[in-house]
Structures are given as C-alpha cells and as structure tokens.
C-alpha cells in the first residue's frame, strides 16, 4: 500500500499477489519465492519448536495446561489416523499426519493477519512484495502433495514389493483378465495423476480464494464511507468464516494424506 505509484485496483491486487522472487539458476523454473519459503520455514520452526519445547518437558504425571493442549491436538490426530490406518502408525504415518496438520494449519492461519497492515509492516522492513500466506502459493501445496505422492509410491513398493505394486496397477480395480489390463492401467494412471492435483489444488484454491476475497473487501473499503462500513462488516464475517475454512482445509489435507498413505499400505 505504501508504494509510490498511483494506486489502482489492478496495482493493489498485483502488489498483494506478487511474490518476492530470487533466482538460483538460469530459466524460469529456477526462481525461488523467497517470501513463501521464509514464511513457511518461520512458521514451521515456531510451530514445531513449540511442540518440541512442550514435549521435552512432558511429564507422564499430571500435565500442565500447555502439555494438555498439545496432547489434545496429538491425541485428536492419533485418533483420526487410528481409524484409517491399520498398522504401526507411530513409526511414521501418525507423526507425519501431525506435521501436515500443524504446518498447514499454521500456514493457513497467517491469512487471519490483516493484509494491508501486514503489507505496511513488510514495507517498513524494506520488503515491497511479500505474500504472507505460504499455502496461497501453489508451489507449497504442490510440494506437500507431491511429497505425499512420492511417499505413497514408496510405501506401495515397500509394502507390496515392486512386482506387487505393478500387479496392482495392471490388475485392479476391474480384474485380472488381460483384456482389462489397458483399462486398469488407464484407470490407475488417472487416479495417480488426480490424487496430487486434487490434494494440492483444493488447499491452494481455498486459501487463495480467501485471500482474494479479503483483497476485494479491502478494495471496497477504499471506495467511500458505505464501502468502508460494509467492507469492515463483511471482512469480519469472512474472517470468522475463514476460521472454519483454515481448520477444515488443514484437516482435509491431513486426512487425505493419511488416507493415501494407508491405501498404499493395503492390498486391493
């Protein structure tokens, strides 16, 4: 907002939706969204640092309120994983689900920070283009979804063996008949492509749309007194509704992660 150029709706939107980029090599691919990376790392370090700090002092006696809160979150996730995944969930799947939930939730929750005030703060720090919400960057959601996708393939191969996995790709879901093989392969191909796409785009779309609506309400607030009043009211309403979206999207992302990983563990 504090840019020197004339403020138009287009420049306002563009200002808020442009990443701070850095280049790590030749070509368009080798650019890095520094804001996304720094924010997500910061959020991750703070979140998991907090968890680690609480867990390090964890007692098996009467827990402190802080520990009880962390236990509540962890037992909630553990319960969700338990009902979906039938195996040794403590070895990997449950902690991974915790990581996904906490990280995605905290990254989504940055959306609650009022965008224009935050933009002013970043401007003070000398950062003109700085997007706060890492999950509104498709790179983050794709990174998570593709990591889960690779883990899915890893567990498929680990649990069923390479042959077992290929057999499953060729012979399910329609049957072992060689005539059905192409259909099976096509079906599985679509499934393996659609999984990471829907996984990542669902989260990205929700959070990005949330951000856009905050921006639109902010623009409306700039149009006059009535706009300010309605923009404020609707902004507050949207923020309250956004609490649900932020939590729900983090939960859905975690549940899909658990479901994909447990599907990789089970033979069909």
């Amino acid at each position, binding site marked *: 907002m504090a840019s020197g150029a004339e403020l138009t709706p287009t420049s306002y939107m563009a200002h808020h939706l442009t990443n701070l980029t850095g280049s*790590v*090599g030749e070509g*368009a*691919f*080798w*650019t*890095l*969204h520094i804001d*996304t*990376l720094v924010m*997500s*790392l910061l959020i*991750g370090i703070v979140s*998991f640092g907090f*968890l*680690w700090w*609480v*867990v*390090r002092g*964890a*007692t*098996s*006696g009467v*827990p402190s309120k802080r*520990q009880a809160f*962390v*236990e509540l979150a*962890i*037992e909630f996730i*553990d319960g969700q994983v338990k009902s979906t995944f039938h195996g040794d969930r*403590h*070895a*990997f799947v*449950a*902690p*991974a689900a*915790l*990581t996904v939930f906490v*990280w995605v939730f905290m990254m989504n929750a940055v959306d609650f920070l009022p965008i224009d005030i935050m933009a002013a703060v970043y401007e003070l720090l000398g950062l003109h283009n700085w997007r706060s919400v*890492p999950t509104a*960057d*498709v*790179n*983050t959601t*794709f*990174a*998570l979804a*593709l*990591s889960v996708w690779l883990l899915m393939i890893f567990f498929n191969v680990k649990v069923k063996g390479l042959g077992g996995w290929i057999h499953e790709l060729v012979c399910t879901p329609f049957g072992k008949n060689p005539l059905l093989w192409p259909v099976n392969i096509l079906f599985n191909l679509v499934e393996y492509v659609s999984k990471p796409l829907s996984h990542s785009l669902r989260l990205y779309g929700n959070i990005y749309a949330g951000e856009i609506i905050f921006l639109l309400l902010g623009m409306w607030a700039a149009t006059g007194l009535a706009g300010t009043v309605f923009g404020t009211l609707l902004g507050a309403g949207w923020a309250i509704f956004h609490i649900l979206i932020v939590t729900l999207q983090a939960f859905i992302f975690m549940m899909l992660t658990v479901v994909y990983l447990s599907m990789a563990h089970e033979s069909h």
Partner: protein
Amino acid sequence: MNINFTLISQAMAFAIFIWFTVRFVWPPLMRAIENRQKSIADGLAAGERGRNELELASHRSADVVREAKHRATDIITQAEKRAAEIVEEAKAAARDEGDRIIVGAKAEVEQEVFRARETLRQQVADLALAGATKILRREVDAKAHADLLASIKAEL
C-alpha cells in the same frame, strides 16, 4: 500460478519437518501419554485389588469370629461337664470317707463293747469267785482247789 524451484525447497522443508516430528516430537509425548495411561490403569487395578482384599478380609474375620464363638461354647460345655464330674467325684469320695468312718466307728464300738463285756465278765467271774470263796472258805482249801478255781474262772 507458476511452478518453480520453490516447490523443491518447500518439499525439502516438509521432509525436514516430518523427520523432526517423527524423531523428536511424537515419540516422547506418546511415551508420556502411554506411561500415564499405564499408571492410571495400574491405580485402578490396585483399587480393585484392595476392594477384593477388603472383602476377603471381612469374610475371614467373620469366619474367625464364628470359630471363636464355637470354641468358646465347646470350652464352656467341657467346663460344665468337668465341674459336674468333680462334684460327682467329691460326692463319691465323701460317701466313701463317711462309710469308712462309720465302719471304723462301728469296729471301735464293737471293740469297746467286747472290751467292756470282757471286763464285765472278768468282774463277774471275780465277783462269783469271791462269793464262792467266801462261801467255801472253811471247807475249801485254796491251795488244794486252786486248779479247780482256775478252771471255773476260765469258764466264766
């Protein structure tokens, strides 16, 4: 919406955070929770055991009291029996003693009677002899009839 190197950097960050959670966050807290669950379960089990033991002890104490009452009754019965026996024995002993005393007394009385009769006979014999002697003084020579007199005295 442009895919670039950010994706790879985010994936690496994700991997590191997962590793961190798997390694440092999840196990200690799960251990704490499981230990607490175990201690709660132990406590509940101990309470249950205590209740069972209390019930057993109350049963046992009731048994002991019943046994003690039973034995007390036995002891009282025996004591009464013994007392009756002692009384009987004492009665018998007293009767025997009495009998013996009576027998002794009778024997003594008889002896006394015998002795008195002996004495009386002696005296009667002496008296008779003295009378006879007085009557026969003149005719009877004491020396000549001494053995006759002696034989009379013995017959009396």
